[in-house]
């Protein structure tokens, strides 16, 4: 929006300059950014949005191992619908979406809470902050695969925490969530939170450092306790950081695939699957490309349901 209005404003002044050379240069200036951006724009358009359309098309076909281009109607969606509402005991798809709800909610809430808490503690002008900050931030530098494998070993009752504590003499200690169909999704939450909360802390820390110290001082003079200070002044001021963190975490939660694969390889009886695992399994391993595509479309719609209102509210604020 801003770009077009600016060029529209420039145009009359450029054509007012009569000499040819000048106008050529003006034209070039006007077109150069567009020319430079064109290839990446075209690539994005084709490989992202083009393939989104292709996936939507495939979800209405009867594609199995290879794409098939004859439309056969919404059969794949009907199957997903049945798997969502009419299956007892739960289908893999139902497990995937309920896991998504559990994982997404806990992951986002715990990461935000833990990140904010760490940031506030680190913001107390403590000694050694320069050392502590990278320590908390470092897990983010690991790939989900590494995180998954490390936690897999750590949580394995025959290998990690439980075994170690047994050897130290605490034999009644029992922690086998990673082998338990009802709790395995929470181990995914643990590993995910461990990985991302340091990054969220860094975001909040930057936000805290950006708060005007005058406001803080003024409220301190007014007699606000530290708790009141954070609750009524600082945290409300961090609202934009909350929003950015929420968006980052939400899309990380929805796309997470590798963490589940590395940590539990799907869990006992597929009980740790997320929708992305479902999509990959059905599209590439089970030769049910149509069902896989339909599940991908549903994932896209879920993400859109979160991102679009956010973008809308952001853009509306800008134009105001």
């Amino acid at each position, binding site marked *: 929006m801003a770009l077009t209005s600016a060029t529209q404003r420039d145009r009359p002044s450029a054509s007012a300059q009569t000499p040819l050379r000048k106008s050529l240069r003006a034209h070039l200036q006007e077109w150069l950014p567009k020319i430079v951006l064109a290839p990446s724009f075209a690539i994005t358009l084709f490989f992202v949005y083009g393939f989104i359309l292709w996936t939507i098309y495939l979800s209405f076909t009867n594609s199995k191992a290879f794409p098939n281009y004859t439309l056969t109607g919404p059969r794949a969606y009907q199957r997903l619908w049945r798997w969502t509402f009419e299956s007892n005991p*739960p289908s893999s798809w139902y497990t995937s979406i309920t896991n998504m709800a559990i994982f997404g909610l806990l992951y986002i809430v715990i990461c935000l809470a833990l990140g904010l808490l760490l940031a506030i503690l680190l913001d107390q002008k403590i000694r050694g902050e320069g050392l502590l900050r990278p320590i908390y931030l470092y897990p983010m530098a690991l790939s989900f695969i590494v995180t998954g494998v490390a936690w897999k070993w750590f949580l394995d009752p025959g290998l990690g925490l439980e075994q170690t504590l047994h050897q130290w003499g605490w034999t009644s200690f029992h922690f086998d969530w990673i082998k338990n169909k009802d709790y395995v999704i929470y181990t995914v939450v643990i590993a995910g939170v461990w990985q991302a909360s340091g990054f969220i802390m860094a975001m909040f820390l930057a936000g805290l450092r950006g708060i005007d110290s005058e406001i803080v001082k003024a409220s301190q003079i007014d007699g606000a306790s530290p708790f009141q200070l954070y609750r009524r002044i600082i945290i409300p001021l961090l609202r934009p950081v909350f929003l950015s963190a929420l968006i980052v975490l939400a899309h990380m939660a929805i796309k997470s695939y590798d963490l589940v694969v590395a940590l539990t390889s799907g869990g006992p009886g597929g009980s740790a699957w997320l929708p992305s695992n479902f999509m990959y399994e059905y599209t590439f391993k*089970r*030769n049910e490309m149509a069902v896989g595509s339909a599940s991908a479309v549903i994932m896209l719609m879920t993400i859109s349901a979160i991102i679009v209102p956010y973008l809308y509210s952001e853009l509306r604020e800008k134009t105001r």
Partner: protein
Amino acid sequence: MRKMLIATALLAATAFTAHAEDVKEVQMLHWWTSGGEAAALNVLKQDLAKEGYAWKDVPVAGGGGDAAMTALKAMVAAGNPPTASQMLGYTVLDYAEAGKMGDLTETAIAEGWDKAVPAALQKFSVYDGKWVAAPVNVHSVNWLWINKAVMDKIGGTEPKTFDDFIVLLDKAKAAGVTPLALGGQNWQEATMFDSVVLSTGGPEFYKKAFNDLDEEALKSDTMKKSFDNLAKLKEYVDPNFSGRDWNLATAMVIKGDALVQVMGDWAKGEFKAAGKEPGTDYLCYRFPGTDGSVIYNSDMFGMFDVPENQKAAQIALAKATLSKSFQSAFNVVKGSVPARTDVPDTAFDACGKKGIADLKAANDGGTLFGSLAQGYGAPPAVANAYKDVVSKFVHGQITTSDEAVNQLVQAIDDAK
């Protein structure tokens, strides 16, 4: 999109046909990257080198071959298939149906493959009357692998029936050894269940239920009993089995931490690698109640529709693959048995000899069945639906055998 694919395919084809002379190279995609497997494949490499063909390896690691299959799909879709690729069961037929495979019929008839290769295997290497793949080996799934030292300690004997097996497992339990080493991944659980069904229902029933997908058989009380038997076996597994890899379960038997593993004969490769001898260190029996029948899966080299100038290399590869010397040398190392029934068993150990004899008998007697768990009983969609149900049953998402049978019928119906 399709036009683009065709265009790239044409481009690739013209790029190749630009050289008129024959390409003296075979390009092979496979996932045999572990030590023993790579050594076994080396035999083929050397055989081809003798005939003047260079070997271009395209290894894609990952035991089950999922990653390799994804890579293959991309190569074929781009119109640039390898000369051959390691493939399993219905995958070969999927590609053949999509018109991507070559035709080796002339060579096959000249070499007499149609007589030497068991009919059950030909179901996957011949599509629409044309030979499209060269079978490399036959693995069979209904085996017990037993640690002999533990067996002696508990005073066990070879179990002949399922009830004998339970008695044996009880003895191990009483002696404080983990009776059954199981890896809690869906394919391992389903592989074991294949044997349980064959043992419970007999050969006729297995074929009806797991090869013909007959709904009456799938719904029957025999299937319910099979699930009940599976539930019995589950009692003998250590609590930490979930997610365990198959080779770690084999290692438990090798080390004597567990008495027995139900696994395909690729487990023998692990015993071999650990320096163990059949008969003295470990025992191989058929799963109780399944003697005389063989549940198989087989590695195939799928032969793609390659440009004219690569055909000679492809035929050389196929011939070398099915030559008796390679079949013997390769399968001695791999733990499996040859894919043709006329290969002498002199180089094989006791378990290998038994495997070869069993295969021959099963082929003659019509009791050679494709393993549903390994993708030789039904197409991948069905096989995976089956694995889901079995795994959910083992891990407790499905609690009764009635429910399991209902789920199985529904899931297979859905996937068909």
